[in-house]
């Protein structure tokens, strides 16, 4: 494999809960070309799951006719993931990012989604417009298993 690699993929799927697993497995398969460790792969799967679940539950209120979109790109040893929806948007971003805060306590949500995304990735950015949708952009550098042998 060459040192300066660049690669990209896009995925668009119905806002159905069974697609949460599809989304995280697809992104994990795409990122596997960087030879990530099990822990890095698990981190990525977890944040994808969090972001996609947010779009399904909060942005679309479980309306399965809506679509969630994922773009993933690889630049060198970093992967950037953008997850977006055209749902209800987030009124108060600062409040939504507070650990343990949830707008849907009746659904037994833990309120940890954004906290997990911030902790598991190297960079995390959320932009949202009420009534228009939300976009989450995250980057992670993959140290790769190869580093262990050097």
């Amino acid at each position, binding site marked *: 494999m060459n040192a300066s690699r660049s690669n990209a993929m896009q995925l668009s799927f119905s806002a159905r809960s069974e697609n949460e697993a599809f989304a995280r497995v697809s992104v994990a398969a795409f990122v596997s070309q960087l030879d990530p460790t099990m822990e890095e792969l698990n981190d990525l799967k977890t944040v994808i799951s969090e972001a996609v679940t947010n779009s399904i539950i909060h942005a679309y209120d479980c309306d399965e006719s809506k679509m969630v979109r994922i773009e993933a790109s690889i630049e060198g040893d970093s992967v950037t993931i953008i997850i977006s929806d055209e749902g209800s948007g987030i009124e108060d971003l600062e409040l939504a990012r507070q650990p343990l805060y949830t707008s849907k306590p009746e659904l037994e949500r*833990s309120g940890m989604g954004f906290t997990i995304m911030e902790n598991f990735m190297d960079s995390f950015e959320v932009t949202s417009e009420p009534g228009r949708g939300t976009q989450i952009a995250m980057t992670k550098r993959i140290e790769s298993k190869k580093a262990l042998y050097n």
Partner: protein
Amino acid sequence: MSLHVDLEHQRHILIVRLQGELDHHTADEVRARMEDAILRGNSTHVILSLKELAFMDSSGLGVILGRYKLLKSRGGKMVICDVSPGVYRLFELSGLFKIMPIHDNERDALSSLEVAL
């Protein structure tokens, strides 16, 4: 992807073994099966064994916390065992460790509850 829930009653203790992936999609089933088993079996305590759990996200934290509250309101406890490094990090981040003891395996979890009786 799916999730398998294995339930075993040992007198007043319910052992719940989760196998597969626990996310928003599979959380409802875990919630319903555990709730039903606790109430039907009149279980005081629950041991949640995560040895075969391949994946979990914050939806899993919500389900675990919800059943913890139910048990606590009935005067019981929830203990967790065989936690993978990935799940461990989620517990750490959310502070779940502060309210639920973690044990290496089912046997240790079981004896911790029997001592507490």
